[in-house]
């Protein structure tokens, strides 16, 4: 294992693709903030960033939910959802999770969210430069 020289500039991540798999929903409040914040930061670095919400995570994207999740940072989760959207993060919700676990229809979700099937996650994962799991 060789480490890169400390003086070298970090490689420009522009145009790289990152897929984030988010599985935690409102049941664990302290775990909801980091995925959105990290995604917002990566998108600001011009990394093509997609968040894929599955299991109970799509519930975070239900209209009216994020503003009811207060965080220790002094904002509600909505602040960080909006930041991610503003920076260009793409939000995808797993169709199977929405239907079978969360009882969510497409009209229940924020307008920025696209509902897709699990095969889309496979395509995105194979296509991404990195996949992060939360």
């Amino acid at each position, binding site marked *: 294992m060789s480490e890169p020289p400390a003086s070298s500039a970090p490689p420009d991540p522009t145009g790289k693709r990152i897929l984030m798999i988010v599985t935690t929903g409102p049941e664990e409040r302290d775990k909801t903030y980091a995925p959105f914040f990290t995604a917002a*930061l990566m998108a*600001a*670095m*011009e990394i093509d960033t997609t968040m894929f919400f599955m299991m109970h995570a799509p519930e975070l994207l239900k209209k009216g939910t994020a503003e009811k999740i207060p965080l220790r940072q002094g904002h509600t989760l909505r602040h960080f959802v909006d930041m991610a959207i503003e*920076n260009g993060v793409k939000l995808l919700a797993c169709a199977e999770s929405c239907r079978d676990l969360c009882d969510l229809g497409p009209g229940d979700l924020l307008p920025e969210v696209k509902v897709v099937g699990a095969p889309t996650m496979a395509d995105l994962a194979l296509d991404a430069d990195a996949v992060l799991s939360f």
Partner: protein
Amino acid sequence: MAIIEGCEIPEDRLYYIERTQMTWVKVEDGRITIGATDPAQARAGRILFLRVKPVGTVRERGKPIATVESGKWAGPILAPVGGTIVEVNSEAEKEPTLLNSDPYGQGWVARMTPSAPAQLAELLSGDAALAKFREVITRDQIHCSRNHS
């Protein structure tokens, strides 16, 4: 120097105030210096991370020239005009809180040569800038409390 809610707004700069952006521009010898304004740094809070695109990067107006992270905000600093990055404040990259403590001085972010200097005329100055600052500072409930001593 105008002061709004404790936030200093120097009169010798141009301002790019769009959506999340509150950026200053100073024109000197055909180059521009770019930085975050006092209300921008106050809104972001303690800045933990700054990464600027490398020298030589060509950017259109509105495209990111840098990424900033604080504990409660992560986002880009956008090019206020199109051009080429000719200098990066590597001291501020090492010590990002310079953007908090001295936003108009040591906390500058990058220098660019504008590709279309006419775009500079579209930036805000004078009363138009102050009116826009008042609007954003009120909307986002910003209060600046730097130690001015």
